[in-house]
């Protein structure tokens, strides 16, 4: 059962997340019936699942929520800000309830009571009861392509002893389509013999639903042994749409008699309007695609294990390559070649599997902007573009907190109060944009607001107070703004600490640097601030070029290399400016030996790599180019924090360590000089 509970919790988390994003959609489009319908349905699944797997608190609580949206659906309650706020709060509470702790904390308890009271105030006098349609047919879900069934559900009296609520099961079925339900109480004993813990009711259901017979059986999966269940397929037609048939159903709804299948079939045959319906159903059916499994859910730990194994495979492959080269056995050469090919494909595939779109975080961001904005009395629009851009899931994980922090900064300090904005001639509603795109081997995430911009004087004062800047030389606006990224600028220790005046961005920068990323800030007074996060596409394995400098090996990511030249040393040209003309292009260059402060060495032939980043190019001179190498990049660790020009290390086939060059930093330095 624990296993089932875990499964349910995973599923419920999905449902809750889905619910959250649906509610945010509803916030923007308050009268959208199909969103309301979907919200209702999601709540219903949550309720049903909760009841089945012993999350009774979740189930009962969601039941009340569902009642609200039932009213909304029926047009009896309008979608308001307060309603959405309460629902969102409720969802947070459901998240807590899903942890299924034996005892709620005092805090959670009071929250629970508070929210419950709010919900009840919405439901008002109309305490939730199952809605009774005049004709006893409940349309819960619009189903176009389905099957009609007759279902008899006769639970044993003791069914409620293990916590099952048979009503939920009936309800779950009914919500999946259009249904006619008849409850029978024939077995109800006289009062003196009645055991209040027993169930004496049985149900008959005629339903038109998308569910297969198998899925209907699954609804009753856990009560199968304790009840008598009969399911009969009545064909592909929605028989409940037949007027004659539903009239018949209505006529017997008040009687205590059971249907009997024979009568039912007879009545069906008499209802001659069914034929037309059959035609309609076939027509609709053709328009629908068949429902195949296109994605599965995998434990993220399994993915991590897969990635680790692939990393090890790549390293082992490098060792095998070395051995093969030394051995010169033609057969081994051939086998190794095809193995290497497979390794490469497997690596790419494993990577692809671990990619997640930035979209996955949208709901969290939207929620933050909405809630914090409301708390501060600011109206803020949140726009996202390019969030389908994918990143390695471990990068997504490490970048979430920094982005949340930046957003918090934008909301708290960027966007001004509506009155102030109007005074400045800006629209009262603030705007925060989050956009993402690929640039070469990196992904950029840009978060911008149209707020006040960064306060130059405040930053300068703080930088001087914290001994980061002497205050003697004159700085440009951009230089001042970037002071806030200097380590030690803020006193906040963790990224999650509440933002101050641009405070904590140095911590954000450090976090981003830890995953080989970079951070850039632009700010204009009263126009707003824009923060760009630059991230590597993947964290762990890259296609690299192995080079040699001063007898040690280094790796350059292959995708940044534009061209490799072997030049005569006389071709270096203007050695003073350190600009070389290659294919009619002026390119700044430097020798890695110089950058790394090694002894210079003189050769007649010079190996030069032209590397690019965005639209900038730079050339670096290396001692020797050794060949391609798939590198599993590992961090240098905290002891090497703040290392310029080196972004990680990898283990070569012979067991020695090669360093991975951060060419983007080298290009930046060269093109700045």
């Amino acid at each position, binding site marked *: 059962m624990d296993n089932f509970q875990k499964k349910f919790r995973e599923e419920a988390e999905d449902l809750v997340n889905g619910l959250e994003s649906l509610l945010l959609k509803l916030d923007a489009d308050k009268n959208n019936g199909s969103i309301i319908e979907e919200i209702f349905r999601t709540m219903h699944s949550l309720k049903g699942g909760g009841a089945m797997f012993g999350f009774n608190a979740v189930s009962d609580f969601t039941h009340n929520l569902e009642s609200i949206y039932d009213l909304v659906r029926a047009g009896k309650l309008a979608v308001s800000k307060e309603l959405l706020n309460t629902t969102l709060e409720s969802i947070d509470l459901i998240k807590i309830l899903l942890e299924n702790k034996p005892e709620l904390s005092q805090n959670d308890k009071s929250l629970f009571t508070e929210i419950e009271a709010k919900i009840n105030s919405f439901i008002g006098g109309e305490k939730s009861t199952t809605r009774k349609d005049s004709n006893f047919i409940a349309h819960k879900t619009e189903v176009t392509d389905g099957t009609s069934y007759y279902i008899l559900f006769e639970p044993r009296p003791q069914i409620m002893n293990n916590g099952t609520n048979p009503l939920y099961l009936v309800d779950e079925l009914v919500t999946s389509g259009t249904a006619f339900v008849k409850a029978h109480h024939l077995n109800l004993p006289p009062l003196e013999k009645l055991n209040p813990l027993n169930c004496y009711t049985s149900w008959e259901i005629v339903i038109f639903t998308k569910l297969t017979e198998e899925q209907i059986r699954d609804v009753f999966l856990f009560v199968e042994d304790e009840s008598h269940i009969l399911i009969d397929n009545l064909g592909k037609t929605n028989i409940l749409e037949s007027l004659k048939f539903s009239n018949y159903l209505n006529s017997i709804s008040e009687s205590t008699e059971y249907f009997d299948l024979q009568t039912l079939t007879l009545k069906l045959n008499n209802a001659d309007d069914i034929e037309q319906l059959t035609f309609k159903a076939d027509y609709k059916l053709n328009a629908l695609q068949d429902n195949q499994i296109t994605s599965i859910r995998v434990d993220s730990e399994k993915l991590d294990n897969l990635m680790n194994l692939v990393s*090890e495979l790549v*390293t082992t492959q490098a060792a095998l390559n070395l051995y093969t080269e030394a051995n010169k056995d033609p057969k081994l050469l051939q086998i190794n070649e095809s193995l290497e090919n497979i390794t490469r494909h497997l690596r790419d595939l494993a990577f692809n599997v671990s990619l997640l779109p930035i979209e996955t975080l949208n709901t969290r961001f939207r929620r933050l902007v909405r809630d914090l904005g409301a708390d501060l009395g600011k109206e803020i629009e949140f726009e996202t573009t390019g969030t389908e851009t994918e990143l390695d899931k471990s990068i997504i994980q490490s970048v979430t907190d920094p982005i949340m922090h930046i957003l918090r900064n934008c909301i708290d300090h960027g966007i001004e109060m509506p009155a102030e904005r109007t005074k400045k001639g800006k629209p009262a509603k603030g705007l925060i944009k989050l956009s993402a795109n690929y640039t070469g081997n990196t992904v950029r995430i840009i978060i911008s607001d149209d707020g006040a911009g960064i306060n130059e004087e405040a930053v300068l004062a703080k930088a001087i107070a914290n001994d980061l800047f002497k205050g003697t030389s004159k700085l440009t606006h951009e230089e001042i703004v970037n002071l806030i990224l200097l*380590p*030690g600028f803020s006193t906040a220790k963790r990224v999650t600490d509440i933002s101050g005046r641009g405070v904590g961005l140095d911590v954000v920068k450090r976090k981003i640097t830890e995953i080989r990323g970079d951070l850039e800030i632009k700010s204009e007074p009263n126009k707003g601030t824009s923060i760009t996060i630059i991230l590597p596409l993947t964290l762990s394995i890259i296609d690299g070029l192995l080079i040699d400098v001063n007898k*040690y*090996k280094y790796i350059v990511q292959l995708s940044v290399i534009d061209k490799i030249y072997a030049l005569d040393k006389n071709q270096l040209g203007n050695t003073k400016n350190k600009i070389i003309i290659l294919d009619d292009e002026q390119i700044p260059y430097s020798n890695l030996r110089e*950058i*790394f*402060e*090694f002894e210079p060495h003189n050769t007649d032939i010079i190996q030069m790599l032209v590397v690019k980043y965005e639209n900038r190019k730079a050339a670096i001179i290396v001692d020797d180019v050794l060949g391609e190498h798939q590198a599993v990049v*590992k*961090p*240098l*660790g*905290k*002891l*090497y*924090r*703040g*290392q*310029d*020009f*080196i972004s990680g*290390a990898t*283990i070569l086939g012979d*067991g*020695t*360590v*090669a*360093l991975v060059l951060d060419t983007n930093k080298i290009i930046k330095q060269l093109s700045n000089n």
Partner: protein
Amino acid sequence: MEEEEEIKTYLTFTLSNELFAANVAGIQNILEMPLITPVPKSEPYMKGVSNLRGSILPIIDTGVKFNLPGSVVTKNSAVLVVKIMLDNEMIDAGLLVDSVSEVFEYNKEDIIEIPSVGVTFNTKYLDGFVKYKGKHYMLLNFDKVFADQAKQNVLR
């Protein structure tokens, strides 16, 4: 933490002719001189990185770190792999020492206070002294060494 109290075994090693000892509880592994790849433009006391069973091990040139002149790499040199606390995170690091000598057992109460004069070595990294077979050993505390490291990184 009680278990640590019970371990009274110390490993002795030398660094530019000074005798040191460290509790074995803090030492993960002792490596013969591994191949070290230097990292350009790093702190002088950072010797480089090395391959420790597939992961990258940063190697600290302990002699430089402690300001002890005359420490050179010989065939006796060794690396002590230790776990250290840095910014609330446990990381592995290798400490390069001139030689590793032997292991002995000692009781905590036998640790001698650090004398206030006559010690050339920076005493803030030490827990005290122990006397064994007529020789004095300085008891090194790794955490103290690297608590210092964390601060340096912040200030840089």
